[in-house]
């Protein structure tokens, strides 16, 4: 397949399929979870407005608890770097913004290419470091399953192909751009089906936890 036809495929049918899978998967997961039977808590709540705790936990758990802070902080920082860099690269780069505008009608100003490349570089480096950590830490290695590695790969490829396209590395720009968009398509398509769904679910799981514990009066 030539670069040009790969690009056309990635922007055309592949994207449509990926988007359909994304929507299907998201709806499936969310409906599936929300429609679960909730067990009733017969105890009297210590607090009535559990949702406040829920909201608080969504944010408070974004920082390690004091007890663990010393042990995990620097990996948390690396992880932060990755998430921030990733977000800047996705949301700050004009071509991506134009895609979002095309899908949702929303738009905002973009950042210079240099800033994007920097952010993406940081994200890529931290992602590599996180992989290294996962591979070298015996505990993490035991805990890791296919989903962890596959999701890492799915997240890493768009980053690296995007950087290659930006710096025009590789002998066919169209091919590299096509691969980049295709890897984005795959990311979209896979997102609801693996651990990457945490981009949505983290709010629900933390909120639920916060609400439950808040109601029970636990210090959170």
């Amino acid at each position, binding site marked *: 397949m030539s670069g040009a036809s790969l690009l056309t495929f990635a922007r055309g049918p592949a994207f449509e399929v990926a988007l359909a899978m994304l929507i299907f998967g998201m709806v499936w997961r969310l409906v599936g979870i929300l429609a*679960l039977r909730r067990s009733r808590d017969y105890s009297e709540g210590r607090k009535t407005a559990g949702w406040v705790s829920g909201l608080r936990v969504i944010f408070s758990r974004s920082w390690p608890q004091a007890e663990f802070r010393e042990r995990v902080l620097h990996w948390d920082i690396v992880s932060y770097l990755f998430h921030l860099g990733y977000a800047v690269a996705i949301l700050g780069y004009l071509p991506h913004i134009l895609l979002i505008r095309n899908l949702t009608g929303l738009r905002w100003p973009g950042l210079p290419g240099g800033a994007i490349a920097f952010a993406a570089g940081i994200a890529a480096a931290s992602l590599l470091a996180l992989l290294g950590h996962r591979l070298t830490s015996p505990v993490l290695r035991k805990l890791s399953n296919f989903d962890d590695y596959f999701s890492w790969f799915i997240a890493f490829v768009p980053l690296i192909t995007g950087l290659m396209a930006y710096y025009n590395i590789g002998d*066919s720009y169209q091919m590299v751009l096509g691969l980049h968009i295709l890897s984005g398509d795959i990311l979209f398509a896979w997102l609801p089906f693996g651990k990457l769904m945490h981009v949505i679910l983290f709010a629900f799981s933390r909120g639920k936890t916060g609400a439950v514990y808040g109601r029970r009066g636990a210090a959170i």
Partner: protein
Amino acid sequence: MKEETGDETVLDVLERRGLTRRAFLQVCAAVTSALALSPAEAARITQVLASKPRPTVIYLSYQECTGCLESLTRSFSPGIASLIFNDISLAFNDTLQAAAGEAAEEAKDSAMKKAWGKYVLIVDGAVPLAENGAYCTVAGRSAVSDLRHAASGAAAVVAVGTCASFGGLPYAAPNPTGAVPVSEIVRDRPIINVSGCPPIAEVITGVIIYYTTFGLPALDRLHRPMSFYGNSIHDRCYRRPFYDRGMFAKTFDDEGARQGWCLYELGCKGPVTHNACPTMKWNGGTSYPIESGHPCLGCSEPDFWDKGGFYRPLSVPTGHWSRAGVMGAAAAAGVVAGLGAAVAARVRQDRTHKPDAGGDTNQKTPKS
């Protein structure tokens, strides 16, 4: 009048016409200049033109709009280009044939016969295959049979324009006439694609002059000469710094447009288009599409008509499907699957924990 032998050199032609060696040196200088050659190569050109038999060039047109030939004539003048084409190389062209002064059909046949196996065949336009070729006929013959015959005696084929190179407009979906590029029909000859809709005049002449003096140039994957198609428009665009700085014109007449900001957002295909527009420019170096405010259409690339619209930014999906319908269906399927999963989970729950054990607060959430 014109006694042609198969192996005349350019020098011979000029001498036969009563011109001196000075005229020959002028031709060499002009060719050198046209190809922007280094002094070492320039010396070689003089040698080649004085010793190598001049090639015969035959030019045929099929499903085209004549834009390529028009572009070619924009570089024509009574000077070097017409000299090269009319007097030195060109043996047949439907349109310019009058200049060669021989009966067209005869000229074509005799030129082909004389240089059989050695001539350069230039083709513009796509070739329709549907309906036995009835969608394009010349003097009652189908274009495809005409081309097959002409190509079988050619040393190389130069496909001028995107129609001949990649199918171009006739090939655009749904390709009603079954059009194909030259390369689909001619498979056993070297092909040089000089794409563009039309190609820049100086690129056409440059490629042909290069071939007639040096032979096959270095080609890219799509068989285009690297010297003209080696860089993308984007790489050499004077607006590139604005792209890098994230400064984009949002419409054709905003502040950014007036200040020459990047046209990416308006659909510019410069990043994925290989051509010499930014460096050679058009019409004697006057301007090129991006300089004149319009995004690059990507006209030198295959299938440029079918890439989702000229004003759709490169990063935006081409969206041939009905998005609302398909996405709605995906969402509906998601709802069904989600509810199904939830019901299944409830059923499982009910089965694990007998109904009479109701009120069990230790109930575990189902495995997700």
